[in-house]
């Protein structure tokens, strides 16, 4: 998504402007993917994420510069048919046997093997799944030491059809195509750190 000239702009302000243009263009023609943004080299990746989240750190401190951009639910697919996509959120439970609310704790919601995941600011659920488990984001960031297990369908669909696509990408695409049509969960409910709730201890 980001071509050579963007990465090698010599001045940070021009680099930011080029990143903004690239993002705007990709949103306009609906080609934007989180995978492309997360796989971009630094500082391009951070600049792009800042622009998507309506902030900038030109002064060295993050400052709000605009409205966060929403790119809609993102279809994520587990590479393995036996895996599941999990979204973490802060919730709370009662202390077992009482009506006293316990301290907040991290809970997870399973979205199944294929899911359209919301990516609203500031939670950015889909982005966070891809950051820690994304294929091939994790592969790239760990320099091949680890592999991601969740793939962004839109990115895969495009990449598999490109002339220079690796064979394994084409193979994964063919394998996943059959599972693509029926995502088995709705986007997750948005929960904040303090406002989450969950049923009492099972």
């Amino acid at each position, binding site marked *: 998504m980001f071509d050579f000239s963007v990465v090698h702009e010599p001045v940070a302000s021009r680099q930011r402007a080029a990143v903004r243009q690239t993002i705007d263009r990709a949103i306009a023609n609906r080609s934007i993917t989180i995978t492309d943004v997360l796989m971009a080299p630094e500082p391009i990746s951070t600049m792009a994420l800042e622009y998507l989240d309506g902030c900038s750190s030109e002064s060295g401190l993050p400052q709000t510069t605009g409205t966060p951009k929403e790119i809609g639910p993102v279809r994520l697919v587990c590479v393995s048919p036996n895996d599941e996509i999990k979204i973490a959120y802060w919730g709370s439970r009662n202390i077992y046997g009482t009506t006293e609310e316990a301290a907040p704790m*991290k809970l997870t919601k399973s979205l199944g093997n294929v899911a359209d995941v919301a990516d609203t600011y500031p939670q950015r659920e889909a982005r966070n799944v891809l950051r820690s488990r994304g294929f091939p984001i994790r592969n790239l960031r760990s320099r091949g030491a680890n592999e991601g297990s969740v793939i962004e369908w839109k990115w895969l669909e495009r990449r598999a059809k490109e002339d220079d696509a690796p064979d394994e990408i084409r193979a994964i695409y063919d394998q996943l195509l059959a599972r693509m049509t029926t995502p088995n969960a709705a986007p997750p409910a948005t929960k904040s750190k303090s406002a989450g709730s969950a049923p009492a201890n099972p």
Partner: protein
Amino acid sequence: MAGVTAASSIADALKTQALSGVQESLFKNDEVLGNFGTPIPFTGGSTINIKHHYSGNASVSTYSEGDALGAAGSQSYITAQWPAAYYRAQIQITGHAEDQLRNGNMGAVFYDQIALEFTMAAEDLRDRVSTDCLGTGLTAPIGIQGIVDSAGTIAGLNKSTYSWFQSYETAGATTTVAIADLDGAAQNSSDADYAAQVDQIWTSWKQKNKLKGIMGQVGASGNSYLQSPAGPLNTAGITSDMFYGNIPIKPIRDLTNSIFLGLTMSTFFLGMMRDWKVDPLAKTDDSSKYLLTGAWGLGNRNPKKNWKVTTLTA
């Protein structure tokens, strides 16, 4: 029965008695703060600022004879701002109480209640700071669970925007801890680009024992449970009797019972905006009043170098 008897005739002569001093029977957590090293004084302003270098020079390359120069590159930096929370306790002692306690004269009292009001209040404050440090706070008071997390805005940085500020976080495969959960977290966070150097794993006592049950028992064939020869738990300086690899698994009282935290301890710091101090206040009627205050904040130089396994509720 005539004569001096214990049953009836020594009551006036016998002093009401108890061993001097007070036995602490109230649980207060004083085990957490020492893990973060010597507190770091704030340097002015409302936050301790950590400058993060997150991007290198993109012009780095190999080149061949005669190649033209490319564009110059530069490093990139952003500042994280870690705040402190102010803590206080108030003490009030009436003139009547001071008189009757003889200002703590040990000839009159079993324990110096006035002095203890101060030392116990200080312990109550430390308990509160410890509890906050183990909590989920993203703003002051910041907690370790908020720091070691994959999302949320902390120290002014949204971890979803600044992905190099995210900790590696994963949910347990089930609600019961499995070795594979720790393996997954450890390998992902140890490799690039998290590059953690975890040297302690924190969990609750219950989860530590759950893990012990999975790892096996000492002396059982095929077990992978290592026990330290160093000595028992609960002794200052002894971190644990269990290890994951060579990393001690440290049970922490008051830590939520659903997580394992892999911590690179050198990344943590306890900021000291104000050391504990006692100020006498103006008297109210015949009472003396005092204010105990301090301002502290947990921070982290590099949250990315810590991991968390969640949802272990069993």
